[in-house]
């Protein structure tokens, strides 16, 4: 089914674009600060083993890239950790690739680009970076990574797409409420974006 809109033809108002850019830069900067303060978290060799499942470790590059993808939303640590661990198993040189994406993001922030432009730039640089970008955002917002028969679910109830509408809708199958609660209008509280 065709999309009802084309992001290339519907640019955000300037004020909104500036806000988003500011948020993205803030997130990226936060990641970079952590990266500099804790260089030992960043793998020095691509063959470094993945983190143990019982530890809460990602890398500054992962934090920076995911912060850029999420905007002003903060994902639950358990989701981030699960995503990082899963990707670590899928991508042998994950941390190097994350570093490359962080580098591209940093460059594009000097010349603001739409998401698809950014993704295109990643693909031009290295097709695998484009795949990683897709797995990152799918993992955060949909709880899935991979494609075709290799697609798999890594999370559900804590994914970001439900998080951003949690004032109105809960994840399906986890949404029990008072009898007939659906007859009442949605009351918007602490809604950041609409």
């Amino acid at each position, binding site marked *: 089914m065709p999309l009802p809109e084309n992001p290339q033809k519907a640019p955000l108002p300037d004020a909104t674009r500036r806000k988003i850019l500011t*948020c993205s830069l803030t997130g990226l900067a936060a990641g970079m600060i952590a990266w500099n303060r804790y260089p030992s978290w960043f793998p020095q060799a691509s063959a470094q083993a993945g983190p143990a499942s019982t530890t809460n470790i990602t890398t500054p590059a992962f934090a920076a890239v995911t912060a850029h993808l999420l905007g002003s939303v903060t994902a639950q640590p358990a989701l981030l950790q699960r995503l990082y661990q899963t990707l670590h198993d899928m991508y042998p040189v994950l941390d190097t690739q994350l570093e490359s994406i962080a580098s591209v993001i940093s460059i594009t922030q000097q010349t603001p680009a739409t998401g698809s432009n950014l*993704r295109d730039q990643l693909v031009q640089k290295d097709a695998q970076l484009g795949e990683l970008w897709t797995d990152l955002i799918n993992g955060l*917002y949909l709880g899935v990574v991979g494609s075709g028969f290799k697609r*798999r679910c890594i999370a*559900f109830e804590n994914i970001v797409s439900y998080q951003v509408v949690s004032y109105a809708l809960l994840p399906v199958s986890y949404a029990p409420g008072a*009898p007939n609660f659906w*007859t009442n209008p949605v009351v918007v509280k602490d809604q950041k974006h609409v």
Partner: protein
Amino acid sequence: MSDATSADIVVIGSGVAGALAALKMAKAGASVLILESGPELKRDEIVARFRDAAYKGNFMEPYPAAPWSPQPSFIPEDNNYLIQKGPSPYKAQYVRGTGGTTWHWAGQAFRLLPNDFKIQSLYGVGRDWPISYEDLERFYLEAEVQMGVSGDSDLDSPRTQPYPLPGIPLPHGIARMNARLEGSPYVVTIGPQARNSIPYDGRPACCGNNNCMPICPIDAQYNGGIAVRKAREAGVKVQSDAVVYKIEHDAQDRIVAVHYLDRNKQSHRVTGKTFVVAANGLESPKLLLISTSDKHPDGIANSSGMVGRNLMDHPGSSVEFFADEPIWLGRGPMRPASINNIRDGAFRKERSGLRIDIAATSPVRALTERLIAAGYYGDELNQKIQDQSAHYVLLKGMFEMLPDVNNRIVASKTEKDAWGIPRIEVHYQFPDYVHNGYEHSIKVYQEIVERMGGRDAVYSKRGEYDNNQHITGTMIMGSNPKDSVVDGDCRTHDHENLFLVGTGVMPSSAIVNSTLTGTALALKAAEAVLKTI
């Protein structure tokens, strides 16, 4: 008591029709054995598989097929279990396992209209039934009591008693839509649903998980698994993983046994006095067609040549748009309301009637997938998820197919499944009757979109119709043995102790979900079966 090799009554298939018929017959004192081709299905495992599913929109993913009971699947790719011969696609989905496909239905439990039983007489199209609405009414009620159907208006299907349960009230956003449509020809009404509006029959009231398809996590929605459990409690023996592949008859054309393969490919012979085939509208006719003998080279119950023919379903059109006020679909059950008042009239001479569901499925996942595919991320993505989820509306209309002998299934002569049983070839074509219905539906959608202040409306295309998994017509009911398979009691014309039940016997598909009618017919058949033993 029945055992695994013999019973008074042998039922093939444990879906809602077969299981409720078995329950009724067991309660009347008969020994009943159900042979189910698929595995045991358990709700807790299904729920867990849904939550772990990579493709949440694939309603088959929580129901993985066993190697001995393959079933159609289309996501991420067509598994080609159904061999499409065209010219139109027929993408039926059904579950092979104890309880059958109602594990993942939407719970919509409509009755047909009285006029649906006589469309040839009234409108000069299709076929008349050999029974009337009035003949079926008490069985509708019996099925509704078993299923716990909630509702308020009779929706022009006359009732001798009220619905067993009060109707489930409309979600706020849909009530707003109804208000916006006031003064138009289109009235949004609460649909009859096999879903508890209050605690009923040991099951809780719906609490709005919005996951009726593919699995209600709390059993507030009725499913065939409940019928199987009750049948077992009444003494019915249920043998799962038993793939029936042959029906055996004697010289007098009475059925004497069926043969099944187990999960180890070992064959077993099961005898009985009366046999009931309830394996859905595709697997049942396939079984009849492959049960050939010297006397019946075209299969059992097929002297008319009608077995597998007249395949019907409900092709569907749709429109999606963003309303000018928040609607917030996704709160409450998934199919709570419909536009039902435009499904019958003299226009049925020329085109299908129309029934429109307001698809109250949470749109968050599907919208997010599209936005990501379009390249959005960060706060722009967050904002659009919020805005679109609030305003998104999806209307799904369905059309009536008419019986056509060229729309048919046949057992493949060359392609077999892993247990050596022929696969199903499907020949299917949408008629002009449906295309004409589509043209009308678009006009209706346009009017509704305008009244809702809709933007970015996307209409489905002519000829590209959704399938609604309401398989009908393939074992068609009629009074003439030369052009039909079963009589008004679902007894085959050719074999006095063989009955075929479920939606496959329906001579018209009408434009409402077929499960309740198929179940009512099965309960009617059960009374006739009991008279044979």
